[in-house]
């Protein structure tokens, strides 16, 4: 039976979710294996060395680097306040004074008689990694963090901006094919809003200004995205944007209804706490944005069903490129031979009967599996 490799995005109502929670540098792990954690719980902590400032002291005092130690009023290892003198020269019987002051508060890390520079470092900053999802500590990664295992619903989006946030899920459109109206955004402080087919720039900003933690929507236009983040995103590596609300789109750009299955699953979870992350990386080691709603593990976790990754005759698919972008259908044939398409390219195609009745030929590369 002919098949084609076409993975889709995950939309699972009840699955086992494992999240690697690691510090950007070595630090202290605060949890133990088997421990139950809430989403807000700190999993690991590290003291990030503060930023350093170089002071060209010898140059400022008009002395040779090797003479610098003679003029110090503070020593390496000592604490210093912003504006405090570190080194000083006097001339004309002490009448003229030349001083080097620290631009920041911190510790004098090094005084170099080779370069004549003084290095002052700000005090360390505490960095914490939180569990992000409520669950159980499956494994501790020594000095770095932990793997949290949770059970619940997982929805992958196609693209997002903004980092990890948590909030209560709330549906704000009348259906998956309805565009979000600005007046529907009310009393949404701290919520993760779910809209249908799209939202324009001002409406997205309105949601963010109203204090929403996240907005999940079928599609937005490039223009709306630019208006929200304030610039053209060039490379598809996101998650670090300085935006007040995480935005996740589930289908693509333009105006596209949210897939009914996604809409219905999120609708069934309305009122529950969702963990969202807009981080997207579309290249080797793909990262897609996620909406996770965990449940208490009262029973055995469901068996891990490997997501279907091959298209076969009868597979439910979505067309993910023009023409017919967004249309749903079922594969009726997978001819093995190369077929010439409108562009004159010869490619492997699939015959697809669209839900609206039409039978079309689509390059296999332009199909996405819909898990049933």
């Amino acid at each position, binding site marked *: 039976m002919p098949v084609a490799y076409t993975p889709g995005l995950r939309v699972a109502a009840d699955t086992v979710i494992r999240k690697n929670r690691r510090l950007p540098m070595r630090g202290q792990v605060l949890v133990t294996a088997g421990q139950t954690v809430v989403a807000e719980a700190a999993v690991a902590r590290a003291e990030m060395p503060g*930023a*350093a400032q170089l002071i060209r002291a010898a140059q400022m005092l008009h002395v040779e680097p090797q003479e610098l130690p003679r003029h110090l009023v503070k020593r390496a290892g000592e604490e210093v306040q912003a504006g405090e003198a570190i080194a000083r020269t006097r001339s004309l019987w002490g009448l003229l004074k030349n001083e080097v002051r620290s631009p920041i508060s911190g510790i004098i890390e090094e005084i170099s008689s080779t370069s004549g*520079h003084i290095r002052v470092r700000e005090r360390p900053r505490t960095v914490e990694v939180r569990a992000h999802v409520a669950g159980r500590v499956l494994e501790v990664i020594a000095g770095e963090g932990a793997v949290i295992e949770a059970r619940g619903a997982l929805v992958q989006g196609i693209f997002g901006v903004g980092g990890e946030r948590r909030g209560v899920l709330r549906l704000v459109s009348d259906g998956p094919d309805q565009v979000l109206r600005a007046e529907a955004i009310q009393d949404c402080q701290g919520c993760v809003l779910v809209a249908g087919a799209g939202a324009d720039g001002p409406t997205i900003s309105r949601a963010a200004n109203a204090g929403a933690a996240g907005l999940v929507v079928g599609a937005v236009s490039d223009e709306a995205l630019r208006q929200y983040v304030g610039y053209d995103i060039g490379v598809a590596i996101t998650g670090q944007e300085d935006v007040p609300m995480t935005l996740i789109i589930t289908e693509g*750009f333009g105006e596209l209804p949210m897939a009914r299955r996604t809409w219905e699953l999120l609708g069934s979870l309305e009122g529950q706490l969702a963990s969202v992350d807009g981080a997207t990386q579309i*290249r080797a*080691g793909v990262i897609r944005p996620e909406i996770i709603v965990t449940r208490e593990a009262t029973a055995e976790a469901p068996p891990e069903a490997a997501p279907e990754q091959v298209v076969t005759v009868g597979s439910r698919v979505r067309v993910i490129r023009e023409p017919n972008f967004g249309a749903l259908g079922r594969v009726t044939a997978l001819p093995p031979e190369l077929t010439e398409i409108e562009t004159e390219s010869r490619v492997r195609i699939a015959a697809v009967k669209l839900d609206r009745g039409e039978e079309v030929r689509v*390059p296999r590369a332009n199909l996405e599996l819909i898990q049933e």
Partner: protein
Amino acid sequence: MPGVARIVATDCGSTTTKAVLIERQEDGYHLIGRGEAPTTVEAPFDDVTVGVRNAIGELEELTGREFLGDGRVQTPCRSGSGADLYLSTSSAGGGLQMLVTGVVKTMTAESAQRAALGAGAIVIDVIAVDDGRADHERIARIRAIRPDMILMSGGTEGGTVQHLLDTAELLVAADARPRLGRAFKLPVIYAGNSEARQGVQQIVGERVELLMVDNLRPQLERENLGPAREAIHRLFLEHVMAQAPGYDELLTWTSAPVMSTPRAVGEMVQLAAREEGADVLAVDIGGATTDVFSVFGDQFNRTVSANLGLSYSVCNVLAEAGGSGIRRWIPAAMAESDLRDRLRNKMIRPTTIPQSVADLLLEQAVAREALRLALAHHGALASGLKGIQQARTMADVFTQVVSGASLVDMMSLGLIIGSGGILSHAPRREQAAMMITDAFEPRGVTKLAVDSIFMMPQLGVLASVLPEAAMQVFCRDCLIPLGTVIAPVGRAREGEAVLEWEMRGERGELRAGDLRRMPLPTGERAEVTLHPSRAMDVGAGRGRRWRGLVEGGAAGVIFDGRGRPLELPPDDRQRLTKLGQWMRAAGAMPGVS
């Protein structure tokens, strides 16, 4: 190596590992087959050799031969199984990412950049005394980027010492850490003023893995990039590759050291330039980056435009060129908002392919802009040394030659090689020829070709061991000739005759603003005589006759009278009419035979 009859070579790319089989036959070496599989550097595999075995496994299936035994490539070939040589290149895991430092941005820092790029690296930042940033900004940047390696340069011999010490202090203050391998020290190559070596050593101490090599710019008038490039290659193998999962194992399989992919392509481009006896420009346009390689005279240069690509970074081309910059190349009406949404959708689903003509024309338009921007970037860096006092004679007074002028001379260029899916797999070869011509605007007489299956990396590493085999396969199986472009340069009014030609007994005339094509099949050559009008030049000088052989290809001989620089009509209707005429004349318009 006379006994080498069977060669297996792999290229471990970021997403795909490609394997090729080359065998010696009576008339020399030939490509026999090709297999590929996803690269497995990342989770859940975390072992590059899994992908290598899979790609070679596919090659075994397709060719009916055996290369693997005991879970590895067997060398040498015994009883018909295994290979006499197994070679590999790699750009997996994002390639070699380097930070370079220098004193003056356009002098030593630029030389350091050339050294790193020529060694196959991606330069993620250039720190220089005059880069306009404050020390704390530089420190924050060094800290944030986590390079694989740092190349430190600056000061000619006998020149500044203090600036080198300052840079060493910056590295220490930033507590620079490598991207891979949390436990190992960051490799730093020092290729600056030798008088500062001791001071730099004292400042950085044991914090980094410091390697001292000869000054890469010992005098303002001289670059010495070889030792720094060799050191980069050595540290790449010893440190960076050794940190990538599975490479320690792969290094025990290969018959020669694993080479970084861009370095291997660079080796092949240089070999091709020597064999052709001409200046060569090669471009590889990928999903994330566009690499440009050139050989002008005896100068080899490479640049990588890290965020100009056609899938992951397609929207970066949009950001740099603007919607109107891309739209101007589409010979059909398309609203800018529609164009932008289509490109965003390509970005998020990069493996999809154009099914409609509009989408195809859009992707080819993006390719033109990506190629144009990448060449501009290349031209800025592939330059003569800047900051040199030039001895001038009376004859120079009128030529106004400045130091640091770009080496890229489109008139002297003999061959352009295009590589990457959009060029190699364009539905019509004529479309590839037009994309290259529109983006690069070759001048005079220039041969065009595409790399059939992007085999240049494997051939580049093969060239380091068996150059004649690499060249034979390059000419026979790798390069697909597209034809020759003839573009007169000079001022002319629209419609004015700019060139008359004679070719195979036929005569023709080219007018300003027109593009014409004469068929000349692949493998054939024809003698052409060109008579440019008084103000025009095709390579022999203004108004001077040019006579020579031109090579055929799928696009034949293209006579391009559109002028240089190529300017499109500002009026939308006129632009659409012109684009349509040119594409039809070149045989590049989909649906029009």
